């Protein structure tokens, strides 16, 4: 075996992962003057050639279906290089009876290249929900601690929205929202009748020029990646300013294997596999920031075992890998006849919804704890693979009548997706599988996952709400779910919403948590985890904005502590 190559250079900081958490740390730490190296397990990204913005389906031989039609089973082939549910040579396992799906993005920018850009603040109550209902745990920080960082993140990345004073969905520093689409005006009207709050959404997409980036050109394709960087991604908005400092080194194709420690138990660097040369290499740094994505970060900590830390690094509490949560997801759609009259027009808008429903039943007793928000979309979007599969299944036949019914039905569907809060439970966690390693020899994760009745009742409520909105518009609700089986009330399998969080949670008590409120390890003072692993709860809000606020706050703390010589 080749000798392990040591980097001759000692960096101030080594960051693992280049997504929302790692990218933000890279920007703040390098701008603060720290020499930083970032390890990214995937390849570099070239937006100008990798992104398929403004491409028509017929410009690709597979029309979006992918080789052998395989992409039509996942996200199609137009998305920005984004990752996959399974990666060759890098497996994970599920314990018997568990069904967990793990989406991994091995690419510079990680999942921020394709994410939904939904940028919602947590509410004050989200940080202390245990105090209200005795479930889960409270955060060691409050909304007021994080609010200045929400301000900074929104001001820097650009988020559109409106001031609404909804207690469950705090207002931010917003750019003006785009005008609503026809479908959104109809849904809003129905929601008004039903007393469901429906307001402009909050997306990290520029409706005005900001910080050298052009405003949105409304092609509706944010998920494909934006060559004008009018939407937020770490690769285009956080890493370039880090590069500009001259203090940033990006190493791609670098799969972190273990965090190294010295005899005093301090982290000294990272051992990683250089995928291109298939050799083991090391970087050394005074501070380690782990932001490899929630479960990947936990895997790295658990795999960093030593005589001093036999249960893995930063794990004296035993909490690493525990408290795994995803968002509760259930979706459905309806056919809305009044949309048949809509004249052909450009309905694209921004990628994603211009309006949404924040949690509106916070002021009453519900059948389940916490709450959910509703995302929705539909109407006259760009045609694509699979769009008439349900209609075909329902009406069958062939010939001119098929063509005519497609003309009539096109643009008349509206789909709804609930995103709700899961309460952490002892049956949902990840651990190292004792029997399996990946192609790099790194032990892999084994997942345990169970929804409880809290989540199932939430999914039930979502289905009932979707139906009531569709029927209130005079439409027909098409989705059928059952109360039992693998997916009661249409609840998605764990991990499918790609909001997994919580496996290295912060907390005031070092015996029950991994990190303090600054994402700093209780056990190893120069080790930080700045991704979704740090979350204590998983409120209905999509995690990315909060990851960035936490990472910015942790990074300022690192700069402070470094100045004081505490690291």
């Amino acid at each position, binding site marked *: 075996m080749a000798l392990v190559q040591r980097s001759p250079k000692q960096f101030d900081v080594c960051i693992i992962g280049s997504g929302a958490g790692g990218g933000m740390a890279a920007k703040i730490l390098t701008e603060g003057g720290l020499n930083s190296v970032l390890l990214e397990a995937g390849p570099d990204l070239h937006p100008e050639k990798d992104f398929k913005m403004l491409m*028509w389906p017929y410009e690709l031989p597979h029309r979006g279906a992918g080789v052998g039609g395989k992409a039509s089973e996942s996200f199609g082939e137009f998305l920005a290089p984004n990752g996959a549910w399974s990666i060759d040579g890098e497996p994970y396992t599920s314990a018997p009876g568990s069904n967990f799906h793990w989406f991994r993005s091995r690419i510079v920018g990680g999942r921020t290249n394709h994410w939904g850009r939904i940028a919602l603040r947590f509410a004050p109550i989200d940080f202390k929900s245990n105090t209200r209902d005795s479930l889960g745990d409270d955060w060691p920080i409050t909304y007021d601690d994080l609010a200045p960082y929400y301000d900074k993140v929104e001001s820097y990345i650009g988020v559109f929205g409106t001031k609404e004073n909804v207690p469950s969905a705090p207002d931010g520093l917003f750019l003006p929202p785009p005008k609503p689409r026809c479908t959104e005006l109809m849904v809003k009207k129905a929601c008004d009748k039903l007393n469901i709050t429906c307001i402009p959404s909050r997306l990290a997409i520029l409706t005005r020029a900001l910080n050298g980036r052009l405003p949105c050109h*409304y*092609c509706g394709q944010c998920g494909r990646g934006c060559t004008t960087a009018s939407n937020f991604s770490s690769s285009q908005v956080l890493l370039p300013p880090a590069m500009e400092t001259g203090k940033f080194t990006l190493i791609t194709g670098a799969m972190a294997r273990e965090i190294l420690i010295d005899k005093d138990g301090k982290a000294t660097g990272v051992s990683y596999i250089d995928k291109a040369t298939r050799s083991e290499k090391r970087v050394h740094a005074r501070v380690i920031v782990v932001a490899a994505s929630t479960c990947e970060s936990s895997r790295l900590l658990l795999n960093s075992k030593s005589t001093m830390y036999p249960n893995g690094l930063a794990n004296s509490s035993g909490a690493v890998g525990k408290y795994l949560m995803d968002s509760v997801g259930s979706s459905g759609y309806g056919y809305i006849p009044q949309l048949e009259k809509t004249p052909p027009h450009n309905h*694209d808008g921004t990628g994603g919804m211009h309006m949404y429903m924040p949690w509106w039943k916070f002021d009453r007793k519900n059948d389940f704890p916490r709450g959910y928000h509703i995302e929705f979309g539909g109407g006259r979007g760009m045609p694509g693979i699979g769009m008439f599969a349900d209609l075909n*299944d329902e009406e*069958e036949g062939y010939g001119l009548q098929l063509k005519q019914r497609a003309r009539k039905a096109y643009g008349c569907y509206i789909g709804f997706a609930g995103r709700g809060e899961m309460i952490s439970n002892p049956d949902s966690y990840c651990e190292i599988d004792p029997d399996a390693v990946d192609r790099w020899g790194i032990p892999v994760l084994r997942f345990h996952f169970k929804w409880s009745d809290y989540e199932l009742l939430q999914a039930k409520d979502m289905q009932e709400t979707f139906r009531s909105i569709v029927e209130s518009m005079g439409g027909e609700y098409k989705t059928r779910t059952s109360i039992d089986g693998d997916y009661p009330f249409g609840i998605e399998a764990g991990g499918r919403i790609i909001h997994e969080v919580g496996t290295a949670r912060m907390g005031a008590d070092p015996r029950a948590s991994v990190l303090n409120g600054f994402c700093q390890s209780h056990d190893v003072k120069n080790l930080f985890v700045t991704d979704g692993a740090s979350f204590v709860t998983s409120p209905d809000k999509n995690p990315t904005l909060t990851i960035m606020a936490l990472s910015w706050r942790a990074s300022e703390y690192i700069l402070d502590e470094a100045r004081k010589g505490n690291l």
Partner: protein
Amino acid sequence: MPNESISRRDILRTLAVGAVSGSVLQIIPAEAAVYIHQMVHKEKSSSPAGNYTPKYFSAPQYAALRVLCGMIIPKDDKSGGALEAGAPEFIDLLTSENLDYQLKLGGGLFWLDGFCTDRYGKLFLDCALEQKKEVLDLIAFRKNAEKDASLSQGVAFFAFLRDLTCDGYYTSKIGIADLGYIGNTFVGEFPGCPPIPG
């Protein structure tokens, strides 16, 4: 398309003036993006070639596939059909890459020939148009298989092919235009919802 008039000179000027000058971001102006897109579009959007050599299907099977696609989405006075849209080429490409498709479609076409031979004494392709319609009227609906179980493989085959034909058609230039989709282009300000007639 509103931006087809943008000239190369305009683009170069935009790049020179640098809407993004001073920015550290690796981005190009939207107008340039649209221009590049239109160039690519012109190169790639030429209609399917007349003399296509199938990648997977035998010549007779491919001929039968074309007949079926044409019957699933025919040409009418408003627009071309699945053949004009290149659906058979699309289906052949995917099938050449997917064993499951090869079973479902390749096997399905054999089933169809067997069925027609039993019923009319000739292969599907050799049947008269009325006979072809008669067969499709049988296998295009699940309820027929409920009455006559011997149709069920044919029904499954046809449902699969119907979906793929729709995929091929509604991702083509012809099919997208047939639905009246407008968009996939640069818009300065999103106009919102136009008036909807009562």
